[in-house]
């Protein structure tokens, strides 16, 4: 099997979409936070807590969508913590973000051990099943790749459009972007910078948690430690890659997922017998760094990103 065969197979493209889905949720979440002026490094931990909470809820008997809701709420709770510390208290966003990641990851481990003390391998749930969209899923190559995914994947793609519309076509989006560009302009127009930024961080964290929940409830059917495995950090880079625009961030997520899906398949080619597998594992990251360098050179960073806003300060 050579590269051309891989690129022409529907399973490859289906895998690209599947791998991209959690990245899309979490990247959108991070993008919303950063557009409002807050860097949320809690993303990695919030994805872990989302993965755990959604899976655990379903395991305890809720429906799948209720599980997604539980995951989102758990993420929003940690988002509230992050927002409280960084927005009204104006603490360092780096320190708070890493702290939230550590706390959320540890909370997930703790809750796991507490709720399943005598289990050696984590129980499985019945995850979201592929939902074949009539007619469209019959198109060769594209059909099985794009239109026989799970409902959560469709939601991810729809969310890109929704977030775009809100950011660029509503007064709320305008206020949110202004809070990230020059909070004083928001304040001068009689709006609350604190409320807008906190809202953005909380909602953004909710989306990150759904990204985590995708792993346990759609991609796999169980919860493992280390399953988020740096995806949160990738999403931070994807926001930069996407120049803080949802559509370009989607492109970045697909590109990264494409490299990732490709490297797994390349390992099975004759080349895989010669080249150490670590090289393949490295490929998506190296290519992402290169793409990041090329794409982000002229990006417009939100001017007030990571700048706390203190009302009344000169």
């Amino acid at each position, binding site marked *: 099997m050579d590269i051309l065969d891989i690129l022409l197979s529907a399973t490859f493209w289906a895998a690209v979409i599947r791998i991209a889905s959690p990245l899309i949720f979490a990247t959108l979440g991070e993008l919303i936070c950063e557009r409002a002026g807050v860097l949320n490094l809690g993303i990695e931990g919030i994805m872990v807590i989302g993965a755990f909470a959604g899976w655990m809820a379903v395991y305890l008997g809720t429906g799948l969508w209720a599980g997604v809701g539980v995951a989102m709420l758990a993420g929003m709770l940690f988002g509230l913590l992050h927002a409280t510390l960084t927005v009204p208290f104006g603490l360092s966003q780096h320190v708070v973000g890493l702290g939230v990641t550590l706390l959320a990851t540890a909370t997930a481990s703790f809750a796991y051990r507490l709720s399943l003390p005598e289990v050696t391998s984590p129980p499985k749930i019945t995850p979201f099943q592929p939902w074949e969209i009539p007619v469209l899923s019959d198109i060769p190559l594209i059909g099985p790749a794009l239109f026989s995914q799970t409902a959560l994947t469709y939601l991810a793609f729809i969310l890109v459009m929704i977030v775009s519309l809100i950011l660029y*076509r509503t007064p709320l989006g305008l206020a949110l972007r*202004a809070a990230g560009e*020059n909070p*004083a*302009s928001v304040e*001068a127009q009689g709006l609350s910078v604190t409320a807008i930024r906190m809202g953005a961080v909380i909602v953004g964290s909710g989306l990150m948690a759904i990204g985590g929940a995708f792993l346990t409830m759609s991609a796999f059917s169980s919860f493992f430690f280390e399953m988020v495995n740096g995806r949160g950090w990738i999403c931070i880079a994807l926001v930069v890659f996407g120049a803080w625009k949802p559509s370009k961030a989607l492109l970045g997520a697909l590109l990264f997922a494409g490299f990732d899906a490709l490297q797994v398949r390349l390992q099975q080619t004759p080349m895989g017998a010669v080249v150490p597998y670590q090289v393949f594992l490295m490929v998506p990251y190296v290519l992402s760094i290169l793409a990041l360098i090329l794409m982000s050179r002229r990006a*417009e960073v*939100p001017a007030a990103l990571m700048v706390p806003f203190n009302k009344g300060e000169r």
Partner: protein
Amino acid sequence: MAGREGAEVVLRLDGITKRFGPLVANDAISFDLKKGEVIALLGENGAGKTTLMNILFGHYTADAGSVEVFGQTLPPGHPRAALAAGVGMVHQHFTLADNMTVLENILLGTGSLLSARLNARAAKAKVQKLSADFGLSVHPDAKVGSLSVGERQRVEILKALYRDARILILDEPTAVLTPQETTALFETLRKAVALGLSIIFISHKLNEVMAISSRVLVLRHGRLVGEVATAETDRHRLAEMMVGAEITAPKLADRAPGAALMTLTGIRTAPRGNAPGLSGIDLTLRAGQIIGLAGVSGNGQSALADLIGGLEMPTGGTMVLHPEHSGDWSPRAALASGVARIPEDRHKTGTVADFTLTENAVLEAYENAPYSRKGWMDWSAAEGFAKKIIETYDVRCPGPEAAIRLLSGGNMQKLILGRALEAGPQIILANQPVRGLDIGAVTFVHNRLIAARDAGAAILLISEDLDEVMALSDLIHVIYEGHLSPAFPRGEKTPAELGVWMAGQGFEGGADAA
């Protein structure tokens, strides 16, 4: 005020008091604003003008007092309430988002945040109508970041008008404008008043206050010290009310210059960007002499300042210090040789904004005794030095431990001046030493510079303000495209004659001589 006696009171401030720690920024201030009038709020930097307006607009909460707009008391601390009541504020530092368009900036926060769409088309039509009515031309779809300062200010005014403001507050609106832009702004304000708006114009520039206002309120040290009809006063009396003392123009007694302290011969530097480098400059700085450098900015002033300050190397010519300096020329060598610098931009190169006054005071001397010994800082010595500057130079501040960014420009400049002069320099490089300062601070800085000259320092005064150069200099040079004019003794040339030199006439061959 005549003719407005019966006019409706649109705004009433009653007993506004605000303290920042031990500093009383506003002390029981009360006044009325009537429909269709322009009142000027006049005061030195740090007199409390901006604080007062921020209270009125709801950015700050007053410790005491109330604000009434159209008969309704405003809840303290809510800009939204002030906006809704018809108060619009144009801040000194613009509150615009650079990456967004003019229209987006104007629309921000005008409707409910939860409404489904931005009604951009209708908004654009309204903005264009307002632009035409008030003479505020600016393209609604342009990114704010691409606009000139004057255009940005128009956007700020449009923001207020778009929200149907009936009261406009302009905080130092002309500080950033060219004279032409100022004229256009005044046209706009006159149109606004004709349409029944009321305006509070904050400034410390007397000629503007005389030109635009009908009534003047004078603030000093947080207190309202005077209220006069503009027609019944003049610049001189206003200046005295503002400063609280009689203003005397600086006097330069004739004095024979002393020995040469620095001699530049045939100095050249590399051009930087669009600004020319120096080409063949001959200049001698002598003890007890102020040399004024007149010229339109961007003609090589920064190159000369950086050369003397040690930030730039000449590419040709010789530079001799007396007594001679050995080793490389650098900022450190300049300081060690007794060169003191008052930099052009006090925020960017003069101070570190988040450092305390103490830290800023020893920025140039921290590695010398008594501020450090054997590699350890002696902070009590440093603080003693800061306290001495604060006292001697009348720096108004919460204390030596305050961050310097909390200070007004004038007070920041006084600290820089004190830091430079207290080091006992032989040569003082004063680059735009009074830019943006009010009369009191200007007089203070000038008198200190003259005292330093009388004590035997050589001073190079670089300024775009010809009046300042003419009042303070023993010798005047004009700089044009990196060339230096001959030295003109004080009083030899009229401003008009110097203006001709500043426009580049009289230089042999102009820039081509390089």
